[in-house]
């Protein structure tokens, strides 16, 4: 459930930013994930894929790097066309 809500917030921002940048498609999303967030990367990827369906994020690649801040999840940037 925590992963689902993180993805929900992430998507809400990505879709708004994608619209702002007039993106046709978001192809890759870069996030950093701290080890104490208790967010399971596999579950996060599952919700990311599911939420992306029928949006400009459909099929987008998710790049997850370890965050130096242990309790942090950060949306760093995204690639779009």
């Amino acid at each position, binding site marked *: 459930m925590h992963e689902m809500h993180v993805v929900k917030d992430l998507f809400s*921002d990505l879709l708004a930013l994608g619209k702002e940048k007039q993106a046709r498609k978001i192809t890759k999303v870069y996030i950093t994930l701290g080890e104490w967030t208790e967010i399971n990367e596999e579950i996060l990827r599952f919700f990311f894929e599911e939420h992306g369906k029928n949006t400009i994020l459909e099929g987008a690649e998710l790049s997850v790097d370890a965050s130096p801040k242990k309790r942090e*999840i950060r949306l760093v940037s995204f690639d779009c066309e």
Partner: protein
Amino acid sequence: MSKNVKVNVEYLTRVEGHGNIVVNVKNGQLEECRLEIVEAPRFFEGMLRGRSIFEAQHITSRICGICACAHTLASVQAAEDALGFKPSPQTIKLRKLLLHQEILDSHLLHIYLLVAPDLLGVKSFIPLIDSHNKVVRRALRMKKAFNDVCDILVGRHVHPISCIAGGFTKLPNEKDLDSMLSILKGIQPDMDATIDLLATLTFPGFERETEYVGLVNHNGEYPLLEGEIGSTDGLRLSKKDYKKVTNEFIVGHSSAKHAKASRESYMVGALARYNLNHQKLHPKALKTADSLKLKPMTVNSFLNTVAQAVECVHSLEDSIAILEDLKKSGVDQNEAVVVGLNEKGTIPVRAGSGVGAVEVPRGILFHHYEIDEKGKIVNANCVIPTGQNLNNIEHDMRKLVPEILNKTDEEITLAMEMLVRAYDPCISCSAHFLNVRFIGR
């Protein structure tokens, strides 16, 4: 052509918290304000299906570790209603005593561990150990006292054992009555000190008229266990019609349903009960309300905590009165009780539907069961007070935020947290970790 867009936004991980507040402000105007409940649904109603009506209270008491006795009481009431069984006056008296302990235990936990740190200027209960050691000791002493009374009465406070459909599997003897009376009378000076402490604290000023919903009755008793559903907007309904009050609906940002009755939202809990039934409180509780300057039809949700303190005095005094009454009349130890899953048929089983409506610490709690001719549950519905309050909390937040937009993010965060905490929501054990997310500020 592909381009990279830098964003750099941190997300709330919600590791400890189960509630998040989202505030969206644009050009100094509040666009959106919502309380997100991200706790996963727990499907207790689904778990009840196919189980015997005689084990419903043991299952539903697991809904909450704080309100285990409250769920037990609503559950046995719904079960007995479905079975057409009328509990004895002695059983009702003992159940009231149990409900009082639940109210005392829960309200004091809220007042001392969750609200007092805010008002004494510390982040949590722990720093109070150094700064207000006597207060901490008193809080723990009182909590232990009410837990001890529950231990004597129903075996244990968390997930009680002996309170079942039909009555009590073990009834208190004279020695038990003396022990409970001694504990409760011994805690009276601590209760007086609690009220003195409350009188020194300043609660935020805030007003928003809303509908207050709770049990009402036609006798002189402050209704906690028995009565019909009433509201300050004039609603009067049988408990069987509880759905006409709750009118639950789903909102996208919360895994808990919202509720509304006569207007956009309503409030349940200590303040609602006080506004509906204050004249029926114990005289000492009424005096306490006067000393804490709590007036009838108070519309400041922050003062729910003060109403809880007033109810504590009522519950303590009424508990003592019940025990003295039981000592005078004696406890009839020969009442027939249901053993196990009613295999001996002590209570005749029939198909039916029953509703339990009990005023528990956070407000009116409904349990509704439908059973088949063998006593198996075919359908269950539990409507929890915090769920009923969520919509009202959001409406309060929408009124409060524009009034404090000139303050810093930290001050707004604290004010919002205090508002949510005032309702003593079931998420309150994690409410010091409530995340406030500001957008566009």
